[in-house]
């Protein structure tokens, strides 16, 4: 992949940030992108948090892949998150590989890329780093924060850290704590990367021999978890890949095999293996309830934020049960909470694709809350 991407908007965070691991970082870049216009009263801003392998290019072409942004299903003119009405901000997470401070950056101490010398980061570190963007844009209170999967985790962390910085919040297909299965799946991906000889303990940037195979396998495994059994069966079934019969080899006979291989190949062109390790680790460390003596409900005590929690019926990676735990904690703390489970066969990936019921619900929620927020104070 190309580690020096040009024309990326960045701020340099000068304020020292003490990470959960104990190290302090400062003067580091956070890359971001915005869509739409911030109105005069600065009350139409929505901060979107991206998922594990996402980036700040929510609704515009990705400069590396030249493909359209990852959430064009939801974000754009006239869409559920309407860029004609709202000002959308999305930053690349700390540890990411799209311009924000990450393991591929040069360590000034030895002029080498950090690799595994990069500090281990947490969801909380990511969120605190991104908060600088709001300071930079001089936005006191967001209309909403929104994010799916790991984006939802950052969002919950954001709300717990900064209860007064957003009017509403939409965590989608997410969780307040990574469970054993979710950690296990991330560990599988990490082991795939670290078993690739080219990974070389994280030092592979210099000779450009990157651990493509390991990263591709990690992506293939993860990709399966993003889809439902029914969704896979309907899309691929036992269909063969451009052939009439089995070839009695280990080539991709089945369409699903070919599809996964393609997903793996495409992914390594745009994503850094070390970033994958660091970000997936941050997800595993995430357990919001651990930060509060009296558990998760304390995280949202005395909050006025209006929450909309959404889960998808066929999502087995971050199932409805995970979302329900958030709802229960919010209700226990007396917070303002709405919850809907969207019935769909599209699995965890439902939030990224054209899913009309889901998009309609978000659109209505944002519109009605914008009306209330506009008339506040």
């Amino acid at each position, binding site marked *: 992949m190309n580690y020096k991407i040009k024309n990326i908007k960045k701020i340099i965070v000068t304020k020292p940030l003490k990470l959960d691991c104990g190290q302090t970082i400062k003067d580091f870049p956070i890359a971001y992108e915005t869509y739409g216009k911030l109105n005069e009263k600065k009350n139409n801003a929505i901060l979107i948090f991206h998922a594990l392998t996402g980036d700040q290019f929510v609704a515009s072409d990705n400069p590396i892949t030249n493909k359209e942004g990852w959430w064009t299903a939801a974000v754009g003119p006239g869409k559920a998150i309407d860029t004609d009405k709202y000002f959308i901000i999305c930053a690349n997470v700390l540890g990411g590989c799209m311009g924000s401070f990450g393991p591929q950056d040069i360590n000034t101490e030895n002029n080498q890329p950090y690799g595994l010398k990069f500090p281990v980061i947490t969801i909380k570190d990511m969120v605190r780093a991104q908060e600088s963007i709001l300071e930079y844009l001089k936005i006191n209170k967001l209309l909403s924060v929104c994010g799916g999967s790991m984006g939802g985790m950052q969002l919950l962390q954001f709300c717990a850290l900064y209860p007064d910085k957003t009017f509403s919040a939409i965590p989608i297909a997410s969780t307040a704590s990574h469970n054993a299965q979710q950690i296990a799946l991330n560990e599988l991906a990490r082991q795939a990367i670290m078993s690739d000889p080219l990974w070389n303990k994280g030092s592979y940037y210099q000779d450009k021999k990157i651990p493509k195979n390991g990263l591709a396998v990690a992506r293939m495994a993860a990709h399966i978890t993003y889809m439902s059994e029914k969704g896979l069966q309907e899309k691929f079934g036992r269909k063969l890949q451009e052939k009439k019969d089995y070839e009695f080899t280990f080539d991709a006979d089945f369409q699903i095999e070919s599809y996964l291989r393609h997903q793996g190949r495409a992914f390594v062109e745009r994503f850094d293996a070390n970033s994958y390790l660091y970000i997936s680790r941050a997800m595993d460390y995430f357990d919001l309830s651990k930060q509060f003596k009296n558990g998760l409900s304390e995280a949202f005590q005395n909050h006025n934020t*209006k929450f909309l929690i959404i889960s998808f019926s066929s999502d087995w990676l971050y199932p409805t049960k995970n979302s329900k735990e958030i709802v229960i904690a919010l*209700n*226990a703390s007396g917070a303002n909470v709405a919850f*809907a489970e969207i019935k769909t066969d599209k699995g965890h990936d439902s939030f990224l694709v054209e899913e009309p019921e889901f998009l309609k619900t978000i659109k209505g*929620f944002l519109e009605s809350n914008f009306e209330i927020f506009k008339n506040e104070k």
Partner: protein
Amino acid sequence: MKNEFKIIANLLPPQSRVLDIGCGDGTLIEALIREKSIDARGIELEEDNVKECISKGLSVIEGDAETELSQFPDKAFDFVILSQTLQAFYQPENVLEQLLRIGGKVIISIPNFGYWQIRTSLLFFGKMPVAKSLPYTWYNTPNLHMCSIKDFYQLCEKKNIKIDKVIGINGKKISSIYRINLEMKNLLSEVGIFVIS
């Protein structure tokens, strides 16, 4: 808004905290928020209703009250409303206990099985009654535990639940129900609204 909702709305003080269980498309809570600045929330089973409520900006959670109520702390709300659904739960007694736990006061309305038209249907025609307040036939009704106003009144007495107020609805007419006129009102009311605590 239907008559029953107007009566319920009148029972609620402004700015109170209210949970409407089985809030449907949110008609009642929307009115409570708008007209009385009530902090109103809802629980609803039907996904389409839930999405409609959310689109209106209402704080409604999708779920079954039979299992969802345990998540709320004691006295989380000043009032809990249950409109004509107690009879549809598998365990109405448990639900009732939960309602009284999470609400300072509970407003429960019941379609009255003691209403004279219901009684005559079974008495004269030998058929399970179908009425305006009970529109289902026996094979597709969600109502598992029908009761009369008198039944519910006696249940409250038996369980030492305080009855603050009982209102009978017959068409557009409303009247207060007490121990003394219970027999008569049990015959003449289509729906009974109880305020208990």
